[in-house]
């Protein structure tokens, strides 16, 4: 009874074909089929945000999407953030400088959420940053370092 479907997905700029069970979640597809384990699974019911990726540029919870729904679409994961030429994305740099990560498990989700947020709001306030990441739970940092990092990254990206 279990169906499979052929899908074509572009992930971090690379297009690939795969045959997937229809019930396979996008998170599991990325992690276990494409071996892009940077996207993490924390709750599988859409609350913690650790699984956040960009779908056609929009932040989405990959645990709440089926892989088949990504057919023909563009996905960006944390592995696609750093520039090909080397170094880190300003958000990654800023998180490092402001101690915005401790165990690192929520970090990819935070990065993807903030990537979308900063692309739309280039001069956010601290309160706006907090609101933007309110759907990403962190159990380690108390969020302060993440907020500082986002504000700093926004500054850098404006320059």
């Amino acid at each position: 009874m279990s169906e499979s479907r052929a899908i074509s997905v572009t992930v971090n700029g690379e297009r690939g074909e795969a045959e997937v069970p229809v019930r396979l979640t996008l998170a599991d597809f990325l992690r276990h089929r494409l071996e892009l384990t940077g996207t993490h699974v924390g709750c599988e019911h859409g609350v913690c945000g650790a699984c956040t990726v960009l779908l056609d540029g929009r932040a989405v919870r990959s645990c709440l999407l089926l892989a088949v729904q990504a057919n023909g679409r563009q996905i960006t994961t944390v592995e696609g953030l750093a520039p090909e030429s080397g170094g880190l994305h300003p958000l990654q740099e800023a998180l490092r400088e402001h101690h915005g990560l401790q165990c690192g498990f929520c970090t990819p989700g935070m990065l993807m959420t903030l990537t979308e947020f900063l692309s739309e709001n280039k001069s956010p306030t601290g309160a706006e940053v907090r609101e933007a990441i309110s759907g990403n739970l962190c159990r380690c940092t108390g969020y302060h370092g993440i907020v500082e990092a986002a504000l700093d990254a926004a500054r850098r990206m404006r320059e």
Partner: protein
Amino acid sequence: MKPPRFEYHDPRTVPEAVALLGRLENARLLAGGQSLMPMLNMRLTAPDHIVDLNAVAGLASIGMEGETLVIGAMTRQRDIELDEQVRSRCPLMHEAILQVGHRATRNRGTLGGSLCHLDPSAELVAVATAMDALIGVEGAKGRREIPFAQFPVGLMTPALREDELVTGARFPLWRKGHGYAFVEFSRRHGDFAIVSAAALLEADAKGRITRAALTLGGIAPAPVRAAEVEKLLTGTKGSQTLFKEAGEACRKLEMMEDVHVTAAYRRQLAAVLARRALEKAHERIARD
């Protein structure tokens, strides 16, 4: 927490979707997935078929037809949030949608999905109640429109036949300059409202309230229009005392009781939020 097995269908047109719903047993529609996918992952539901609406053409749109806002069922909540027409002509919906979940859930969540899921606390469901929305439905027997007051027939149960799907909703708009407020109480930012109050007010040149709508969400299986309070307010000038009285009158409404929230607390929130929503709506009435 992995979904159970199901067969997957992704129709391209509404008639295809309708045909599938008519043919398949134990099928569920997948819209934004923000409510259905958690249930699937937790195996709280085990449909044999998932009918994914995300590829159906023509179901996502926001437009005006005269003085009516028309929104397609698969319109993403985030697009509603960003729409300038919605912000200027339907500010209640705009204010409400800012409180729906988080950005990532609004990026996928749809109007139609929220309206059909009929969570007692859902902000968009309360807005539809407040504005007497008209739900556009298409099924094997053709199209029909359901006034929102008749849409919920039980807890999380819409008045839809097995072969029907919601294609959109129409929101008759209030006059330009009307007062509005969507006030909710939740434990954390983005959480479902425990109780919400949506107030809409129109007043004449002398400041007398000519039209009032007060909707309480989260107190009953479906949002409740406090009709008696609306009558109380119409024809009056609106004042702190009056709005306080209106809030207190809401205590008489029937309140749900469950393991998470008592009826007593809902009652308190209803009274307070109703008053606050009315005060805010009244302040926002444009004085020309």
